[in-house]
């Protein structure tokens, strides 16, 4: 599979370089294609390549490599891509700890980094950089929206839980920033934990009227399956990551009716999104997740900037990126002063459509939302 893929990409880049123009752009995509987080990276890669294919973007060449969710490997790949492959743009990283290892040094070397997923708070505030653009969200955003939704839903006592690592603390901080009620218990689990009996017993006993949890990838699947088996009737809410298209099938019917928050969903009614969802299903035979939509937007952002400026003139290219003059699958999309999105975050519900579990938008959580760290960034 990996070989086939590499062959495909080599083929793609060769056919692309055949038509090479003076201002070819070379994009290095470092993403997670193996291990527990593989589903996220596969969707991101597929979404990115689909956008280039749909736009017929012959002047953009892509190199894809698997980071295996290991920071040290991501750093090696980035160095190789910058020095040997001479890429202009890096993108693709899924996990915040990997982004923190790669991004600060890459942007110092005049490489543009476009984040299609991770949005650690450190890169949004004082450490913001003119070469770093986040096309997804700042890490806290979806959790803030969940906090806001919990208020609206009238929950007064909420049990909150996340893994004990930076994105986990960001998540609970974000939730608490917007939630006005009472947090009955706050639990940090181990990263990679697979048995949640301990936490589930505490939830049963807590008297909470809702549970908020952020457990990305396989951790969330394990938790939801066990939660369902334990027959507790306390409703759960979470960020879109805990109920994205790539994991819903594994979670199973226990996820039905669960409320989660996301900046994107497949039923958002705008032209770009309708075309994206149809093309993705046609090409890959499955429904896209938010990870695919974010990478699709990232590729379209590059295409839009390339139409306006030459990558050789970095300053003009950055200005073109910042205009964000592309049709986002999310509808309205613009960058704030810190090159992070200002966007609307929706409330979704897990439903079953034609025998497939998926999400449906049921409302808006935060309109035109900007992250809490923008003020600490000195850029304008």
């Amino acid at each position, binding site marked *: 599979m990996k070989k086939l893929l590499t062959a495909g990409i080599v083929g793609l880049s060769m056919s692309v370089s055949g038509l090479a123009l003076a201002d070819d752009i070379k994009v290095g995509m470092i993403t997670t294609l*193996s291990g527990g987080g593989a589903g996220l990276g596969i969707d991101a890669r597929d979404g990115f390549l689909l956008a280039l294919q749909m736009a017929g973007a012959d002047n953009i060449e892509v190199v894809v490599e698997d980071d295996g969710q290991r920071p040290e490997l991501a750093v090696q790949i980035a160095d190789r891509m910058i020095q040997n492959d001479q890429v202009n743009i890096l993108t693709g990283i899924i996990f915040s700890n990997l982004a923190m290892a790669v991004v600060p040094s890459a942007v110092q070397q005049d490489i543009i980094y476009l984040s299609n997923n991770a949005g650690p708070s450190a890169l949004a505030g004082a450490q913001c950089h003119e070469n770093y653009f986040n096309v997804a969200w700042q890490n806290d955003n979806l959790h803030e929206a969940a906090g806001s939704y919990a208020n609206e839903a009238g929950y007064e006592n909420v049990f909150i839980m996340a893994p004990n690592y930076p994105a986990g603390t960001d998540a609970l901080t974000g939730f608490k920033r917007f939630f006005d009620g009472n947090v009955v218990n706050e639990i*940090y*689990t181990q990263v990679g934990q*697979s048995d949640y*009996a301990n936490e589930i017993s505490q939830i*049963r006993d807590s008297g909470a009227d809702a549970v908020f949890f952020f457990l990305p990838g*396989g951790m969330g699947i394990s938790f939801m399956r066990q939660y369902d088996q*334990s*027959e507790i009737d306390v409703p759960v809410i979470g960020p879109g990551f805990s109920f994205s298209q790539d994991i819903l099938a*594994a979670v199973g019917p226990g996820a039905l009716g669960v409320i989660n928050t996301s900046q994107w969903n497949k039923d958002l009614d705008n032209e770009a999104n309708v075309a994206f969802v149809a093309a993705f299903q046609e090409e890959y035979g499955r429904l896209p997740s938010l990870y695919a939509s974010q990478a699709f937007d990232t590729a379209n952002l590059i295409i839009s900037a390339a139409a306006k400026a030459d990558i050789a003139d970095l300053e003009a290219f950055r200005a073109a990126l910042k205009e964000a003059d592309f049709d986002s699958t999310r509808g309205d999309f613009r960058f704030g002063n810190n090159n992070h999105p200002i966007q609307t975050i929706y409330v979704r519900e897990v439903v079953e459509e034609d025998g497939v579990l998926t999400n449906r938008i049921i409302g808006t959580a935060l309109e035109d939302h900007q992250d809490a760290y923008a003020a600490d960034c000195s850029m304008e």
Partner: protein
Amino acid sequence: MSIALLLEQILNGLQLGVMLFLMAAGLTLIFGVMGLINLAHGSLYMVGAFACATVAAWTGSFWLGLVASLVAAAAAGAIVEMTVIRRLYDRDHLDQVLATFALILIFSEGTRWVFGSLPLYLNIPDLLRGTIPLPGGGRYQIYRIAIIAVGVAVAVGLWLLIARTRLGMRIRAGESDREMIAALGIDIRTLYTVVFAIGAALAGLAGAMVGALQSVQVGMGEPVLILAFVVIVIGGIGSIKGALVGAVLVGLIDTMGRFLLPRAFSVFMDPSEASLIGSAIASMLIYMFMALVLAFRPRGLFATAK
């Protein structure tokens, strides 16, 4: 904190404990009889889980899957013993560690090659679905109670096997004097293969049962293997009784620590900080306990006389 919660957490601790016992029993038996350190024991756990998931998916029956896990893990164990492990008995522990570490890599990549990197999911059988009420108002999952019951049954079964059967007598004899038992005309090679297969089958059983709660994926055995080593070091290497006591202690200490430490810290600090620090310390607790045991009883709680 209610009585119901405490009761549930004790059951959670026991469930983790008996699951660790199934792993540790095989590990300690193999070390006790053959003097072999088997790092690949976690791979046999994985083999059991994959066999159960595959057969359950084919036939739709978890029970057939469970049988398949025992058979597949025992067969894998026997084959590995006859082809690789047999050559290692006379070597020192470093060679054994190297060779069995290589086996981990072979098993992991082989499984990835056959099944891919994405996890498989195994459903709990209908018979054991649901929960039962506990005194004090709590509820507990039937499946987890079943795991505890299986663990207790295996402990009793192993005790009967070792204390009351001819095979058990040979195992005990093999533990105390390897040369003598061979000199008495016992087929020591077959005995070793049988012991290795029994240990492997127990690991496979644990993998299959846990697979239905969590997920079945490459590398799932290694975190459990580390805990199983902690268990046998605490219990005394080579002692089945030690493995049982060690496993239950580790299960209870880990569960109670993760549950009680954050609460204890929140008495005198901000709840958010208490949770972060409490959970970090809780994850180290069993290793601290192991260090404490080793400080006072360097050969473990139930050291075998050698």
